[in-house]
């Protein structure tokens, strides 16, 4: 499926993601890594930050609802309807992001901004793995 290249909206949206990460660091002192925040909903609990994590994730969930209410327009989203594939992908994303200490936000946005060598390696690996996966799925099988 073809999607429209949106350089301006993507740059502005990206800047908002960065702003949210700066806001979180300035107020709670934490890195805005979604996998880190979500995985710490589960034990072992190392601190008392659970309520704040739930609040942050609630904000993520509410954001598209607010956008739809404000604009009156639906949000365009195409999610695969292959449910076994999505379940397997969810497991891989959940396990891999925590095992690798972060995902697109924690490593890709916050870690690169901190010039962390760990995040640079992690980001390069998940970009490459994701690109190769799409290459195989879209162009390699029965192509």
């Amino acid at each position, binding site marked *: *499926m073809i999607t429209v290249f949106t*350089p301006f909206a*993507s*740059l502005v949206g*990206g800047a908002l*993601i*960065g702003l*949210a990460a*700066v*806001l*979180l*660091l300035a*107020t*709670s*002192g*934490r890195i805005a890594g*979604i996998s880190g925040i*979500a*995985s710490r*909903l589960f034990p072992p609990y190392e601190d008392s930050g659970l309520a704040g994590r739930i609040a*942050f994730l609630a*904000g*993520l*969930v*509410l954001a598209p609802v*607010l956008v739809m209410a404000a604009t009156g327009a639906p*949000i365009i*989203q*195409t*999610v*695969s*309807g292959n*449910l076994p594939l*999505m379940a397997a*992908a*969810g497991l*891989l*994303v*959940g396990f*891999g992001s*925590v*095992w*690798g*200490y972060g*995902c697109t*936000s924690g490593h*890709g*946005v916050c870690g690169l*901004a*901190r010039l962390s*060598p*760990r995040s640079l*390696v992690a*980001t390069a*690996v*998940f970009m490459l793995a994701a690109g*190769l996966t*799409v290459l195989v*799925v879209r*162009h390699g099988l029965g192509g």
Partner: protein
Amino acid sequence: MGILAQLLAGLVFGLGLVISGMANPAKVLNFLDVAGTWDPSLAFVMAGAVAVTFIGFRLVLARPRPLFAAAFQVPTRRDLEPRLIVGPAIFGIGWGLSGLCPGPAFTALALAAPGALVFMPAMLAGMAAARWLATRAPAIPSPSR
């Protein structure tokens, strides 16, 4: 106040995901599909986000402490280890299969697409499993069982 600030940060983050187009897995998959229907938008999202955090983090970390917490909790390790290859490789395969990473998995919940609703519990289970496995290592013989 701290919790309110975290709610606001989550809202702004989610707003960024929606406006940037990254809440739509099709756009993410097309960024990854360099050999096909390539959509370079994700690179612009990264550029916008890193430009703001690169400057913003430095301004914030120059302050003695965060507004509503005792101290900054920023990762300090800079050493490389196998987990930094294995984890991201597994994550990348799942990301490439679905077009969903953890942030967009949460913003997708409200639109309630069946694929997104199946993805979320599976992702949380994977996270819980990784956390459990990480606390088991290193392999020290467990005391009296």
